[in-house]
Each structure stands twice: as C-alpha cells, then as structure tokens.
C-alpha cells in the first residue's frame, strides 16, 4: 500500500514538473524572427488587416506587422490604460468622435499625410492628430428573404409604425459606437427642429415599444435577423453589404430618405509610438490610392479621399446617393453619455408600458 502511494506521489511530482516546464517555457518566442515589429490597433477585422499586413510586409521585408482587432471603444480604453507604457504604434479605425476624445487626452501624435488636402475639413483633425479614411453611412437593414424591398421601412419615422411591433431587433446601443451615433443623431435632429431634445426621447420611446430585443453583438444581431426572430434593424451600410455578399446572409438595406448620419472613420499615430517612422510608412501605405481602392472593392469601405477617380470605384458606391443628415458632431460628442444614460434608465424596455 505504501508503495502504491509513493508511486502515485511520484507521478504527481512528474506532472508538476511537466506543468512548470510548460509554464517556464520561454514566452513569445519571436514570431517576428528578428524583424522590426509594428503594432496596429484596429477595428477593421482580420480579413482586411491580413490583406494589408501581407502587402506592407512584401514592400518592407524587414518589418513584421502585428495587429489587434477589437471594437473602437476598446481601442480607446486600451490606449488610455497603456498611456504610461504605450504598446501600439498606429490606431487604425474608429468613429471620429473617439479620435477627437483621444486628441483631447493627448494620446495621439500629429502627422500630416501626403494627401492631407484631399479630405474635407470636418473629416480631419485641425492639428493633424487624425485623418478620415472611410465614410460610413447608417442605414435601415431588413431580412430580404421575409420582406420585399417595397415592404421595408423607407425612413426613420417608418420604424415607429405599429406593423413593426416586435419585429425590430437592435444592437445594444450602450456598447456600440454605431448605435450611439444613430440614437444621438435622432435626438439631435429633434433638437435642431424643435429646440428641445424631448421630442427625440419621445421618438426613441416609441422605437423601444416596437423593439423586441437589444442584443450583445453584431454577429448575434445578424443571426437573429437571418433566423427571423426579428425582421428589421438599423446599422451601418458596409457591414450589411459585407454580410450579404461575403457570407450570404439574407440581408439588405435602405438609406433613410430624409437623410442619415454619416460617420467618418479615421487613422492616427499614437503618442509614444516605439516605431514612429515605420508607423508613418504604414499610415501612408494603407491610405494610398491603391489601398483605398482595394478597401472599397474588396471590403466595402467608402473612401474619404476625394481624389479617387469615380469610375474606379465599385458600382454599389457609384449608384448610391446618400443624403447626409446635418449634425453638429461636437454637440454629439459632448452630450452622448448624458443622453445615453437617460435612455438607459428611462426608456430601455419601458416603451411598452
């Protein structure tokens, strides 16, 4: 018996040795292989990032581009908490209001790209801290297997119609920059016409009454729409096009006829970037004419740059006419937290009562 117990304890020590061996194995044995690392925080997703990583590394064989793909709010939080020990060089992708915030908090460093004259004044930082890359219009999306195009809602106010009761599913607006922008824009719209935000909140309360559920992420949202738990949502155009064409989800969109918020997506160099020179080259590379066209054709991004020849853009961009909702982005940035807090405590799930 004693012998057995010894044997087992020996086994235990062997296992313990194994585990500690695993633990002490040299960490992150360089996947860069002695190359110069360039670290990018981005919202643009694995596929787009992988494509541009490969392209840039081909032209710069000494550089190893490494990226982290995450939500825009996450990038800001991360950059903020790494302020004392910056890890990344480039921040590529986020609505401009987040870049504005980061600029205010001194998290960015200025850089004036060679094409700085080719974007509108509101699509860039006045002090070169960030520049717009892509335009992202918000749209009404619907399940195209269940609804014919003529049956889908045409404009924002159509969403309040009783026939959409329990047919609308939305992405949880607190966690989503896109949804926050849409909700705040609709409040701001009422402010611009009536002088008060009350009508805007009333509008959102009626929308809440028609809303079946607020879901945690975009993948879940598109699953629920495709499976017809709901039929209608609001989201941004490139994502809907991407899901439709790349992944064959039965989704289509309508651009609201009275006008829609168009979000500017941007790029910036981070303060304290360890590889600032390479970062500038990467910045130029991904915002070059060729790259912009590649992003438009393959990844459904509408360019901010105005010097891209129109005939080279994909058909879906050329054929779309977008009426931009005039918005004061400064007010939106300042008020969005306050408005969303009020929405969360007074309106979420209370519209039906």
């Amino acid at each position, binding site marked *: *018996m004693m012998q057995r*117990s010894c*044997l*087992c*304890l020996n*086994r*235990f020590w*062997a*296992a*313990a040795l194994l*585990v*500690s061996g*695993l*633990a002490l*194995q040299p*960490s*992150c044995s360089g*996947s860069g292989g002695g190359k110069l690392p360039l*670290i990018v925080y981005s919202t643009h*997703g*694995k*596929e787009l990032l992988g494509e541009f990583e490969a392209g840039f590394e081909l032209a710069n064989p000494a550089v190893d581009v490494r990226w*982290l*793909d*995450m*939500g825009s709010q*996450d990038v800001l939080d991360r950059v903020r*908490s*790494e*302020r*004392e*020990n910056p*890890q*990344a060089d480039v921040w590529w992708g986020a609505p401009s209001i987040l870049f504005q915030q980061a600029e205010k908090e001194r998290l960015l460093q200025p850089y004036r790209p060679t094409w700085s004259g080719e974007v509108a004044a509101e699509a860039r930082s006045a002090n070169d801290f960030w520049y717009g890359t892509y335009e992202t219009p918000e749209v009404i999306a619907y399940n195209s*297997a269940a609804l014919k195009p003529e049956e889908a809602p045409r404009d924002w106010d159509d969403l309040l119609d009783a026939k959409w009761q329990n047919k609308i599913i939305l992405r949880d607006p*607190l*966690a989503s920059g896109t949804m926050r922008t849409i909700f705040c824009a609709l409040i701001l719209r009422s402010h611009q016409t009536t002088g008060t935000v009350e009508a805007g909140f009333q509008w959102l309360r009626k929308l809440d009454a028609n809303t079946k*559920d*607020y*879901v*945690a*992420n*975009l*993948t*879940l949202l598109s*699953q629920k729409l495709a*499976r*017809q*738990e709901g039929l209608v949502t609001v989201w941004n155009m490139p994502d809907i096009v991407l*899901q439709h064409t*790349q*992944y*064959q989800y039965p989704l289509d969109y309508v651009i609201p006829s009275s006008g829609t918020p168009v979000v500017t997506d941007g790029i910036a160099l981070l303060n304290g970037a360890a590889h600032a020179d390479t970062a500038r080259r990467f910045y130029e590379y991904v915002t070059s004419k060729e790259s912009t066209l590649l992003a438009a054709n393959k990844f459904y991004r509408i360019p901010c740059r105005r010097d891209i020849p129109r005939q080279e853009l994909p058909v879906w961009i050329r054929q779309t006419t977008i009426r931009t909702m005039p918005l004061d982005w400064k007010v939106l940035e300042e008020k969005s*937290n306050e408005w*969303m*807090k009020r929405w*969360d*405590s007074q309106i*979420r*799930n209370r519209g039906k009562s």
Partner: protein
Amino acid sequence: MSSPVRRPFTTAFHALILVLLLWLVLYPNAYILVQSFIGAGALTFAHYIEFFGSASEREALWNSLWISGWSVVLSGLIGVPLAFLFYRFDFPGRKVFAALASLPVLLPPLVGVISFLFLYGESGILSRSLQRWFGLREPLFSFRGAGAILFVHAYTMYVYFYMFVSAGLKRLDYTLVEAARSLGASSSRAFLRVTLPQLAPSLVGASLLTFMTSMASFSAPYIFGGGIRVLSLQIYNSKLNGDLEMAMVETVILASSSILVLLLLQRYEGTSKYRSTTKGARQPVTLVSHPLKRLLAGGAGIVTVAFLLLPHLTLFLISFAKDGTWTMEILPPRYTIENYARLLSDSSFLEPILNSLQMAALATSANFVFALVAAYLIVRQQVRGRALLGSLILLPWALPGTVLGLSLASTFNQNSLWQGRILLVGTYWLLPLAYFIRHMPVVVRAVQASFEQFDPALEEAARSLGGTWIYSVRRVVLPMVLPGALAGSLLAFVTALGEFVTSIVIYTIHNRPISIEILAQLRQFNFGSAAAYSVFLIFLIGATFVVSQKYLSDIGDGAVS
C-alpha cells in the same frame, strides 16, 4: 486538541501570504472603494445616495440577490446527486461519465453561451422542433429573462458542487457511517446526521463560489436577460457611459453583498466542525448488481450527462454549418469543413492556444503552491487573523472579472515603488497575475475543505512517532489534501484556459489568449470559425481532464488505501 506547533516557517509563510494578499488583492480593491466615495476631488456620499435613490439600481440589486440565491439551490440540486451517483455506485461507463460531468463549467466563452441560443432559444433547435411537432405558428418559449439566466447558471455552476462533493466523498470516513448504522440508525438518518455533516465544508465552499460567481455573472444576463437589470450589467453600462463613479459604487455594493454572504456562511461553518478522527476508510463503491437497477443508474447518469453536453454538441454542429445558410431550418441545411480550413490556413492559429496554455500553467502552479500554504496556515496552524486571511482570499471571487481587470490595470500602470506600484500594463505578466488572483479562491477553498475534513491528530501522531515536520507533511498532510488541491487546481487551470472577461481588459499583443481569438472570429461574422475554434478549446480541456484523470486521480486513492 493540543495547541498547534509553531515554528519559524509558519511565521515567515504567514507574513509572506499576508503581504501578497494585501498587495495584490486588497490594494487594488481599496482603490475602487476609495474612488466610490470621491466626487469632484472631495469625499462624498452622493453616489451612494444616487444609487439607493434610483428605482432601477435597487431593482438590479434585488434581482442579483435572488437570482444568485436560486442559482445556489438549483446548482446544488444537480451537482450533489450527480456526485453521489458517480462516486458511490458502479455501473458501466461510470468513469467516463464522471469525467464528462465536469465539462459544462468549461463551456468556451461567448460562443458557448451563444450555443444555448441555438439550442434553447426562440429560433433554436428545441423550440423549432416543438413548433413543427405541434404545428404552431409562434414559438412556444423565448428563453429570455430570469428563468433563462437561472437555467444557464444552474447548468454551468453545478460543477462546483459536483467537484467539491466528489472530492469530499473521496475523503469521507465511512467507518462513521457504518458505526451509526450498526447502532441502529436508518440509512437516511445516517446520511443526514453523519454523511452530510462530513460534507459540510465542501457544500459551504461550493455554495459560496456559486453565489459569488452568479452575483458577478455577466454573459448570461447580458445575452439571455431580455432587459432584466442586474448589478453586473449596471456596472458595465455605467462604465460604457463614462460614469465611472457610479460603476465603482455598483461594484462596491455587489462585492459587499457577496462578502456578507461569505461572512454568514463562515459563521455557519465555524459552528459545525465535523472531522474524521481516524484515518478512516473509504466507502467501497457500491457495485450495482441488479441488472434493472444497473440499467437505471447507468441510464440516469448517461441521460443527465448527455443533456449537459448538448450545448457542446450544438457548438460542434455549428462548426460544420456553412455560415449564413442556417436560417429557418431546425438543423443546418448545408455542411462544410471550410470553417476549420480557414482556421488551419491561418499561420498564427496556434499562437493563442500556446499563450493560453502557458499562462494558465503559470497561474495555476502559483495557485497550487499558494493554496497549500495558505490553507495550511488557516486551518492547521490556526494563525491569528485567519478569518481576515480567509476573507481576503475569497475577495477576488466577489468581484466581477471586468472589475478585477480594471483595478489591476489602474494600480499597476506605473513604476512607483513607494506606492507599491509597478508597471505591468502592456507586459506579458499582468494577465497571468490576474488569472492567479482570480482563481485563488477556488484552489484555496478546495484545499481548505480537505484540511478541515481530516483531524490534525494524524499529523501530530506522525510527529510523535518521530517523523520530522517535512516528513509528516510529505507523507501525511500532502497525500490527504492532494485530491482536493488537484480538483481545485484543475478547475482553475481549465477556467484560465478559456477566461474571457478579465482577459479582454488586459491582454496584450504578446499574450493574446484563446477567448480573444474567438472574439475576433465573431467580430468578423465568422460564426462557424468561432465555433470551430471553440471546439478546439473543448478538446484541449477534455484532453487536460483525461490526462489528469489518468495520472493524478490515483493519488488520493493511494494515500488512503
């Protein structure tokens, strides 16, 4: 009982453990507590007044409390009988199913929870089948709200009861039960008055972990809550809205509720100490010989485990479904291996897996050593302030993972030695440290329960027979507590492998773990690939279990036989 033997070791270890706890656990949390009382640079109760003045905040507190209470009851009702079934009776396939029954707690993050939707949700397999079966126009149920949360909680948290009680049963002194029976006690009386009290430490430990996990639970209410307010969601929403003070207050309230329950349970535990006074004898596993009973016991075990594995199977199914095609059908209409192909063609496919394995191994090794020392001090040496030690050790569990991440990130974001702060943000080490802190309670509780169940007289006997301290620890103490320590460490290891909520706050490019890779797949609508990656994770966890069963489970047997 003779007074505990004191030696310089004890004092040194005690000091070390206390310093570690104060520095790594109390300090970051004290920061949050202080912040909750600060408004515009001055001391204020304003946030607390706002909290208790708001109907939605009070509602959230109440919901969190009652949902957690019920989660404990339901998890116990599943976990305890299962442990008895698998550890007291023998029937075909017992060992395999006993191991499989621990899997649910290891459902991969995010996608695992989402697989519930595809199974039990409004448009899920079950709902659609029933709908078609009965020819209904509308789905029968929507799997939303408190009921759905409780379902998911009971499903994932019964494992605490299962594992703790299983370990307890292994240590159970069956001679006592036999004595009671021979003195004329009925079997149910012997169970209630002898068996159950011996299991009290395991039950208390499991209840505590379940309650705290459920208070801090995030994914279940977020995905299945259907708008129900609970504290963990309120914290998240406040933080997203830039209302950090309110998030701190909500965190403090949540943590205090958990700590209150902890203190209540500790009082109960203090009043009921049941120890085995002899080395005892294990109950022989009852071989069920009657063919019908054998069939029934085996059948019940298998059906339960099969039910518990349904979400894993669903995940497996999704990993082979062609993205975007499964819309109105009960089961996916088209199958493909492209989800796996997409993963395997990615040159960095293995990187997150290696990262997670390494960090989990690091953190768990530290947990194991720490837990042995800490539990020994608390239970055996009866050191002064052990209630404080015990509470500090459990504190990480009382806090949601996000909060742990945040508090670590805001404490260790600069080198300032006089403040006790070092720069870890952005380095490899912060995340393994977080795993270590977060899983400290499971391992310590498991070891503590083992220590509490056997009598110190055994150790003293070894010493009085001339064994050195080292010898008595190695040959008496360690073998007795190893089953518990290993069960706890195993749980910590696999939980660390798939950890998500803390990881997302503090991972860096050097240590991107598995859960973050799954999230990245999800972000790109690669639902199938996310599921495929989760299947890899499940296999990884399964392999860990098999290996540990094979190499480690005998240790306990060997020690008491």
